[in-house]
Every structure is written in structure tokens, then in C-alpha cells.
């Protein structure tokens, strides 16, 4: 599974950082920063559940987790 973050859509709701802090950080203004940057956003199997949770709780539909 791969994860992508659309920073244009992110409005800093902070849900991803709260639910998946090993996958997302926030910048000083509260906008999401994706920590999984290598290999086209490929997630390790143990990250998939948290990544999906983050995507499912983003009010702006800014996160995509897909094969």
C-alpha cells in the first residue's frame, strides 16, 4: 500500500497527526507533514492500519492510501 498527502487540500485539522504520529508530523502552523517519503510512499505492513485510519478521518479528503 502507498500513501499520498495532498498538501493543497490539507487545512491543518490535525487528525492524521493525532491518529498516526509515526506516519505524520505537523509543521509549526499545524499542517500535515508526511514522514513516509521514500519509495513513492510505500507503507510497511505494520503502518497500514494507522495510515488507513488517518485517511478515513481526514475531513478534507487530503490523504489517500491505495495499492
Amino acid at each position, binding site marked *: 500500500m502507498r500513501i499520498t498527502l495532498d498538501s493543497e487540500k490539507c*487545512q491543518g485539522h*490535525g487528525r492524521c497527526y*493525532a491518529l498516526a504520529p509515526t506516519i505524520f508530523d505537523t509543521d509549526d502552523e*499545524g499542517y500535515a507533514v508526511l514522514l513516509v517519503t521514500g519509495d513513492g510512499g510505500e507503507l510497511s505492513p505494520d503502518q497500514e492500519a494507522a495510515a488507513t485510519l488517518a485517511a478515513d478521518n481526514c475531513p478534507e479528503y487530503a490523504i489517500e492510501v491505495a495499492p
Partner: protein
Amino acid sequence: MTDVHTATGPDWATEFDHTSDAYADAAPEVWDELRATCPVAHSDAHGGVWLPTRHADISAIAHDTEHFSSEGVIVNVFKPYGLAPMGYAPPITSDPPFHADARRLLLPAFGPKAIASLEDGARATCRELLDELLAPGTDVVDAAREYAQHIPVRVIAAMLGLPKEDGDRFRLFIHRIIEKPGEYVGTIEPEDTLVHYLTQHLRRRRAEPPQDDLIGYLLATEVDGEPLRDEHIFGTLALLIIAGIDTTWSAIGASLWHLAQHPADRERLVTDPDVLPFAIEEFLRFYAPVTMARIAATDTEVGGCPVAERDWVLLPFPAANRDPEAFERADEFVIDRQRNRHVAFGLGIHRCLGSNLARLELTVAVDEWMRRIPDFELADEAAVRWSTGQVRGPRELPIRILRTAEVGA
């Protein structure tokens, strides 16, 4: 248009008044009925106002700052004019491009990491209030007036650097501005207004040495080498006081109102503490307190309905949160809901600046209450009173305490 009547109300599709008691009492049913039968309602109240209830329409408006201005965000027959792009309370009343700079000044103070540092203070406030509440022999308390309303007042006062004993005055100012807009005009002493209060306070602060709080920060901030204009500082402070108090008070009160009537949800919070963050989001979805508003910047349309330039449009985020097109089991409170893209804090560039603070306060308020008062019920269902206007929550909430627990026991 289709007739939409609840048992006692007017024709909601054409005659709603969002500041009336009838609307406040039945709002979730009104939204559900309208969404199913007349998803973009219009009323002549307050000089004319539109009420969309579908998630898709509300989201489209919130994201469309070209056709919908934030120059006015609280529907009032006195419609703001000529104040764009700053508006009277930046950044909530600001439009692009001014909005981005005004918001960026405040974002760092309200980011998740900065707000996390306020948790200990917020917990101490809640514990202090519970200690006062649980005087020996007390079995009925008003959870709205004696608990929920004090929490955001104290937290925001500490953050801004205002005396916490001024809380009662803030609440009066807010009541006039949000709950009954327009009603008090011409009947208040000038000394007893938010304008006067803030003017006096800022004058004092400018004469004193700088302090490390949000007012100190705003007074010291420069944009492009210039200090902020007085009306900018003033408007931002008014916004932080107005926006941060009624709203959070409402969310805390509504959550306790729910728990008082749902023993299984109380039990779940006690036995499964990991569910708390999900429960908090579900409280926010199901009892989202805030309805915003916009003024149409041009002739446009909402969900196929023609909206004229300068028309008021309400953005009932709680109605979006109950739209079955956007949420599974939308009309059910699901304490451990895993997919929850609720819009309690709005959408787009005006996403609630204080959302991290509000979440912290709601989390701490519910958690501390449940630790001390794990079992409780409504003392008198008929005595519960909900606020009117664009911020919805219980203002009177008599609760009977069934069992208390010692903290740390």
C-alpha cells in the same frame, strides 16, 4: 417547495428562524427533514437567509471563497458591508488574500504541539471545578452552568492574559453577540460592552511591560515591519473570546447530556479508556455546536438554488455531520466510530483556528468528569435548555449524581 413540519414547528422549509427556541429544541430533526425534502431551505427571517443541509453543498460553500465572503459570519439583520477583506474580527471575517496573513500570525499558538502544553492547566481547572461541585450532600448539579461553561473561559483567559474573574462579563458579551444577535441593540450601557472592555484592557497593556501571553504577542507582532493595526488586534481578541467560549462550553455540555442518558456509553468509557479519542470525535460529529454563515459575494447558486449577491447563507456543520450520503449510520451515535470525517470545525481555509484547543478542553473535561462522576443521569429532562442561534448546546443541564469515585483510587 415542500411543506416540512415537525409536530409543533413552523414550515421549516420557508419559515425557519435559527434564533428561535423551536429551532433550538428540534434542530437535528429539522435538518434531517429538510435534507430529505428541501435540502436548500430559505426563510425571510433576519432579512432573508438560506439553509443548506447536505454535506456536499455545505462543503462546496466552505471551499468557495470566491462566491461566498466571510465578511459576515453571524446572521444579523444588520449586514456587514465594506469591511472586506479584513472584516471586523480577523481572520474569521477575512477573505483572501488578507486572510492568509492574519491567520498565519495565530496558527503557531494554536498548533497541536503548542496546545498540548496546556493540558496540565486544563486538567487542574476541571479538577478544581469538580471539587467545588462535589460539596458534601450535593446530589444534583447543573453541569452546564457549574462545570462546562467555566472551563473554556478560564483556559482562554489564561492564554490571552486576561483575569479569570472577568469570565462572567465575557459570557454576557457573547450571549448578546451570538445567541440573540440584534436583540440588545440600544439597551446597553457603553461601559458594559466588549468594545469598552477590550479598549480599556489594551490601553493598560500598552502602558505595562511586555508579557508572555497572546495579547503580548499580538502587541509585539509586526507584519512587513509595521505593527498590527489597532482594529486588527482588537478584532482578533474579540474573536478569540467570542469563538472560544460558547462553542466549547456547548460541546462539553452536549457530551455530558448524551452520557447522562446512555449508560452503556458511560460504561464503555470507564472500562475501555482507549475509546476516549474516538468518543470525543463522535461527540463532535453528533453534537457539533457551530453553524457558520457567509454572504454571497456574487449572484451564485447552492445545490441548484439561485442565491443573489449579498444574501446570507448559513453553514450548519452539524447538519452536514448527519448526512447519510457522507456518513455510515449517520443518525446513530457510535462511540468507537473508526471512519469519522466530521466537519464540526468547518472545512477549507477557515477551519476552526482553535480546533486543537477545543479538542483538548473537551477531552479533558469529559475525562476528568468521568473519573470523578462515572455514573449520573438527567435530574429533570424538561429543565434542560438549549441555546439559540449559531452555537448550539445545553445552557441549563441539571444532572443527578448517582456515584462518585476518588481520583487515583
